[in-house]
């Protein structure tokens, strides 16, 4: 059975890249959101197995969105996917309970490896 993934990223390009990379894997993208507010609403409806979360987005940023999802659903899996790849940001992601951090630009192995690790 495939694992349901919700992608939260304001870039359609990133959403397309993830669709292509994950198309022939056990991971299935079941929803894409372009901002944190939509992600919170969508999470309630879909209850995905994992959320990939960009940080820099219009409105609520990805760290705040992740914090709110994890507060409401402590069992949620959130994988941060961002170009803001430095200690402060990674530490903050870890402190709120993210399952990992994928640095942009990512390739197939990096994305799938991080997803596998998040489910391990």
């Amino acid at each position, binding site marked *: 059975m495939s694992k349901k993934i919700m992608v939260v990223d304001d*870039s*359609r*390009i990133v959403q397309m*890249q993830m669709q292509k990379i994950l198309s022939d894997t056990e991971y299935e993208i079941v929803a894409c959101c372009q901002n944190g507010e939509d992600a919170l609403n969508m999470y309630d409806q879909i209850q995905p197995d994992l959320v990939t979360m960009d940080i*820099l*987005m219009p409105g609520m940023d990805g760290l705040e969105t992740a914090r709110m999802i994890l507060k409401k659903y402590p069992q949620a899996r959130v994988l941060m996917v961002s*170009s*803001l790849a430095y200690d*402060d940001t990674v530490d903050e992601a870890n402190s709120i309970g993210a399952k990992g951090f994928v640095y942009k*630009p990512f390739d197939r192995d990096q994305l799938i490896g991080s997803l596998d690790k998040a489910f391990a």
Partner: protein
Amino acid sequence: MDTLSQSEVLEILDRVMKDITNRLDTIQRSNQTPTLGPNDSCTVCTTFEGGYRATLTLCVDTNFLIHLAQRSMQEENVNAEDLEDFAKEYFNVICGQVAAKLFQAAHISSRFQIPKFSTGCYTPEETSQELVLNYTSNRNEGAQLIHKIPSEEENISDHTTKE
């Protein structure tokens, strides 16, 4: 407190620009200012905030941007919406890497605003604290990365330092 010289900032910008772009296509630094006309170029820009205050602007030949987008999307057909979306994401990655390198080099913690896109080449007003890096592709398409630090009046805090 750690500080960065102009040459160190310039080195970071150049390294990131080449690292990110050369994943998709080849560019080289150039001593010549590229010709970027209003009808055949695009601009993306953002402002860095937090421990580092500066604006970063990228003006690029539209054909070069289309080529990068085709490679990134693995699609031959790139429409205007795709191009804008790609340009913002490409520049977002460049800025994120710049922020990461600033942190590694001088423990400067910064964020940046969501990049803005426009067609045509819109360079910021020249100031004494401006760094300009010129690039050219193998097909002679040009790009220009412009880093500008706010003037003294705008700059109320020590923008290149972190406590």
